[in-house]
């Protein structure tokens, strides 16, 4: 049998294996006898519970406490989240105060609890009503008293008092404290508590005074005592340990009391390894090293157990289970959180059978990472707990789980608190990174009401607050896109107005010049054969008039120059409009990216086709250029008629795509809106040029083959047509339609939409 308990404390019946702290019991007895109220304080893992179980209790039973009665009834419990109920269960347990109690309307436990709740004398009343013999004492052991400060009224109250200790804790402590006022009644109270919670005791009136009176701070073990604690149990069960291993262990554990439970675990594992190796000779270094030494044994052991879970689902249940059982969020010191099976089922979403299967690998007697130990049935009300806090510090996987959980709880608390403030009109909706973070969290964690209640009240309000934030953001994005569109449209309108104005101006200037030139000529011819005498004078006058005409001509030229100037301005404007269209596309892309990343339901307004298809074309240019061989395009020439009104010059872009570009300056002011392709041009090249045009902001209305296959077979022409229906292609249509089908029926020659169509050669 393995003489080391591993992670759990020593039990009372294992006192014969408990060594090293023999000297400390006397002081505890003296304090308990004097005050009836002893608080055993020490760091986590220093062995408080073991010291009480295997040091104090055996000494009491041996009658070593002076002045006390001979026999001891012991009620042993942990306060958990129901301290008075816990005390009642412990007192009502068979053979503590009662044996073979007759059945009745109420269970013994209920009656004891009712009596405890009647007044602060409740514990004394219970003792009196049990009518124990005159030679008996009652010892009430409250193990892990600090649980009282962890399981207080979370979620039971709103407002500023929500996190204060409740009436339940106060009433419970009053029951215990009352014992001190009645030294003639043979009731004794022993608390064990982690020293880092000492300050919290001040929340309860009267408790600090009681602790001051009867506090026992567990001393660290000396080197000699540590040696005894390691070596003696081995000898007790008839085995031995090599001096080398003993020295190594004593050094590894060091002065850190926190390490004692980890030492116990390593010893337990070393023993198991030694048994596995055939129990040859003394326990020795190789076995200790095989289990990973103190530094790694626990982590490895736990990982081994975790490794026995076979399915993803079990592993998921396992993660949720351990997250529920540990708590770093309420207290960064990291505490365990005993939880009932019923609650665990709800939190993990797993039925008891699944939970039991997952827990089984951690409950094996050789492991006992989880309580209750193997063999004990799991009922809905059974409380599950990790056996020691050191597991939280040493098992890397659990550490990262509980860190995740703490992060998650922190997020929820922040959210719940802001939601509360928002409801009170003291905080704004979340946006930006706050909102994105919260949405990612919700997506990843899928928080539930039950889960949330363990950390803070107000789950529903918090979720509603989050939804409200999402709705506000969608509305905001939609509004921004609409605003961009409105600006773009307004700019375009301006361009159109200016363009009309410019056309009118040019027409006027041309007429003016022509009229003046003709007038002058007629005047000169008509008068040339007139009177000689008047010739000189007329010549003089003519010269004057000529000068005036020249001046007017100069004016006309200036007017033309100014018209050109405004044309340039118009061009600049148009280019800015197109730039904005591109930017709007990018904005849309950003929004879409957000949609994709955060799984937001997209706002419908984002799908506006006029913005979307330009962006779509860009994507398709890129994709198609990459998917077709560049060499295919090197033999293809694009005749590109750059128009005075065109803003985006596609020359460079087409060259970059691999085409030979024949750039020409067109004279007519019509916009580029059509392409013609020769018989040997590959379909992809045609579509590539089409996409590029759409992407650059042109409305493409025609994609036509050359009417004669012999004409310019390897040429794509880009120009303007007035003979095709004015409904532009979208990139999507182009991609989805075979090239031949894209051809549109041309209007008869005479019904051209615009005057002065510039037909490409040969068309």
């Amino acid at each position: 049998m393995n003489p080391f308990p591993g992670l759990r404390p020593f039990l009372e019946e294992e006192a014969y294996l408990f060594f090293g702290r023999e000297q400390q019991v006397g002081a505890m007895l003296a304090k308990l006898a004097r005050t009836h109220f002893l608080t055993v304080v020490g760091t986590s893992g220093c062995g408080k519970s073991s010291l009480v179980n295997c040091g104090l209790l055996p000494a009491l039973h041996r009658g070593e406490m002076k002045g006390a009665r001979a026999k001891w009834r012991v009620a042993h419990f942990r306060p958990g989240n129901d301290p008075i109920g816990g005390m009642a269960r412990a007192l009502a347990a068979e053979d503590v105060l009662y044996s073979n109690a007759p059945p009745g309307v109420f269970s013994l436990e209920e009656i004891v609890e009712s009596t405890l709740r009647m007044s602060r004398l409740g514990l004394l009343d219970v003792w009196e009503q049990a009518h124990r013999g005159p030679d008996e004492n009652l010892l009430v052991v409250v193990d892990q008293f600090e649980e009282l400060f962890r399981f207080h009224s979370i979620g039971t109250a709103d407002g500023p008092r929500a996190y204060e200790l409740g009436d339940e804790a106060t009433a419970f402590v009053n029951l215990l404290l009352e014992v001190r006022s009645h030294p003639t009644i043979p009731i004794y109270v022993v608390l064990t508590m982690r020293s880092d919670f000492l300050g919290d005791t001040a929340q309860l009136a009267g408790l600090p005074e009681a602790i001051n009176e009867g506090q026992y701070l567990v001393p660290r073990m000396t080197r000699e005592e540590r040696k005894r604690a390691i070596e003696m149990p081995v000898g007790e069960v008839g085995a031995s340990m090599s001096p080398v291993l003993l020295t190594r262990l004593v050094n590894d554990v060091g002065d850190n009391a926190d390490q004692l439970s980890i030492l116990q675990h390593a010893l337990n594992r070393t023993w198991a390894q030694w048994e596995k190796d055939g129990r040859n000779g003394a326990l020795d270094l190789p076995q200790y090293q095989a289990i990973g030494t103190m530094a790694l044994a626990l982590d490895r052991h736990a990982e081994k157990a975790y490794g026995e879970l076979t399915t993803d689902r079990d592993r998921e249940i396992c993660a949720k289970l351990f997250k529920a059982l540990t708590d770093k969020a309420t207290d960064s010191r990291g505490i365990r959180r005993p939880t009932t099976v019923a609650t665990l089922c709800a939190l993990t979403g797993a039925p008891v059978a699944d939970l039991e299967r997952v827990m089984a690998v951690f409950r094996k007697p050789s492991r006992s990472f989880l309580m209750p130990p193997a063999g004990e049935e799991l009922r809905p009300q059974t409380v599950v707990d990790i056996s020691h806090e050191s597991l939280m510090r040493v098992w890397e996987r659990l550490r990262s789980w509980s860190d995740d959980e703490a992060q998650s709880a922190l997020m929820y608390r922040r959210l719940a608190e802001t939601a509360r403030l928002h409801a009170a009109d003291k905080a704004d909706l979340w946006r930006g990174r706050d909102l994105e973070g919260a949405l990612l969290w919700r997506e990843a964690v899928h928080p539930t009401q039950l889960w949330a209640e363990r950390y803070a009240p107000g789950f529903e309000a918090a979720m509603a607050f989050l939804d409200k934030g999402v709705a506000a953001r969608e509305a905001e994005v939609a509004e921004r896109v609409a605003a961009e569109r409105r600006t773009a449209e307004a700019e375009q309108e301006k361009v159109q107005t200016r363009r009309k104005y410019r056309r009118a101006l040019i027409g006027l200037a041309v007429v003016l010049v022509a009229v003046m030139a003709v007038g002058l000529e007629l005047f000169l011819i008509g008068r040339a054969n007139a009177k000689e005498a008047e010739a000189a004078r007329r010549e003089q006058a003519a010269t004057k008039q000529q000068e005036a005409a020249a001046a007017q001509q100069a004016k006309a030229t200036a007017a033309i120059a100014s018209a050109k100037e405004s044309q340039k301005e118009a061009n600049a404007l148009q280019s800015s409009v197109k730039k904005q269209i591109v930017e709007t596309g990018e904005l849309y892309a950003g929004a879409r990216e957000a949609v994709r990343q955060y799984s937001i339901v997209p706002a419908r307004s984002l799908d506006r086709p006029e913005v979307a298809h330009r962006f779509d074309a860009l994507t398709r240019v890129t994709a198609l250029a990459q998917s077709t061989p560049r060499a295919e395009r090197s033999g293809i020439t694009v005749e590109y008629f750059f128009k005075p009104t065109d803003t985006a010059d596609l020359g460079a872009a087409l060259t970059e795509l691999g085409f030979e570009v024949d750039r020409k300056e067109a004279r007519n002011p019509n916009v580029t809106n059509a392409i013609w392709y020769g018989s040997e041009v590959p379909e992809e090249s045609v579509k590539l040029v089409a996409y590029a045009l759409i992407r650059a902001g042109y409305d493409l209305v025609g994609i036509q083959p050359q009417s004669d296959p012999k004409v310019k077979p390897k040429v794509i022409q880009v120009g303007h047509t007035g003979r095709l229906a004015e409904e532009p292609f979208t990139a999507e249509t182009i991609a989805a339609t075979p090239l031949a089908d894209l051809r549109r029926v041309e209007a008869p020659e005479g019904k051209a939409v615009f005057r002065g169509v510039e037909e490409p050669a040969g068309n």
Partner: protein
Amino acid sequence: MSFSRHAFISYAHIDNQPLLDASDGWVTTFHRALGQLLSPKLGCVADIWRDERLTGNDIFSDEILQQFPSTAVLVSVLSPRYVKSDWCEKEIIGFCEAAERTGGVAVGNKSRIFKVIKTPIDAGEEVPPVLRDMLGYAFYETDEDHVPRELDPAFGDAARQEFLRKVNKLAWDMKTLLDELMDEEAAPQAETQTKPAVYLAECARDRRVARELIEQELERLGYLVLPAHPLPTDEAELVAEVEKLIAQCSLSVHLVGTGYGAVPDGAGEKSVVVLQNEIAVEASRKRALKRVISLPAGTESAQAAQQAFIDALHTDPSAQFAADLITGSLEDVKSAILAALKSIESAQKGETSEAAPKRVYVICDAQDRKATVPLLKALKARSIDVRTPVFTGDPAQVREANQELLANCDAAIIFYAAADEAWKFQQHNEVQRVRAGRTGKAPLHELTYLAAPMTDDKDLLLSMGEAGVIDATGGFSEEALAPLFQALGVS
């Protein structure tokens, strides 16, 4: 007096009809629960009996009457049907008659009849006089619409716990009564007699559970809680009754909540909660009645009159007069009540010593103890209770004992001999602190007794010629003590 049976349960057959065929009726459950809870308190099996009433008719059996002389307590299960039944009248009258022959229905200020109200009786219904003037144990709850619903352990966890709590309280009270009744030797508990009475004011429905919890704790701790009878419903009578009751109490406790409370008939149209508070304020002004008011933080009422009362309690000094207003939880209220009672009790202890000999505490340093002997002798000769400091033992206990001496003496003499100036100065400070904290007691006289050796400090004190300085630097003399005797009124 000795009784062979502890209690008899009187009830109406209809109140024991099971809801389901297989289950127990309410009275059967109540009977079993009472037995279960009373037995451990008595330390033996409680003998509680009732007529099974299997026939369901009203035939009254004389066998019951014959048992009454040997029965200590009658538990009467009240319901509308019960008060109309023959059993009710016959059993109550029969028990009362038998009781007259066995020491009377009343034991001290308690009754041997326990009224358990299963279903409340309408105001018009005839209730036997002996039950009328009794508060009783309400085994029902009323919801917001004032509809009563009986407590039955079968109605879910909350009802089960509440039922258990009430049976437990009833069992406790029965046990206390039975102890007094059965054991003639035992004098009425000395503790109960010296403990002050508490007026726990009637409250509105929403604070009733809190009131019951406070009441049960106070009674368990041995305090007499008033009112012990229902208050009159007429305003003038109610005021007179409350004044009378409060006059018997050293502390009044008022629980205020969202409800305004019942309004008695009368011109004032004030609720019983407000009236009791006003009467208590008056008593506080006249004779320093201590008061505790519980008003949970954030309490708001939809009723305008109640909201006005709540506002007044928070802000109006006359409504809050002499009261400790507790906004915390129930346990906070209990702690405040117990703290108030503790100070009342310790003050009472002080009062009783008034007639006792005057007590003088002579503060001296350990090295000067011998030098005090002539002074001590002179004081004792005048039958003054002289005390000197404790010097040995656990420092904390020594300090506590000496403070206790100082707190409970009529005069303190600082015996300033070999000790130094700092010693004298700090002793004087300590006396002053204690004197400042002494309210409601006779004043504490302080004298400084200057003994040899002479020092500059003592010289200075003498030349200042202050009152309360006794010059014995030249040796002890009776005459120098005259100011002390004068102050204490001893010759």
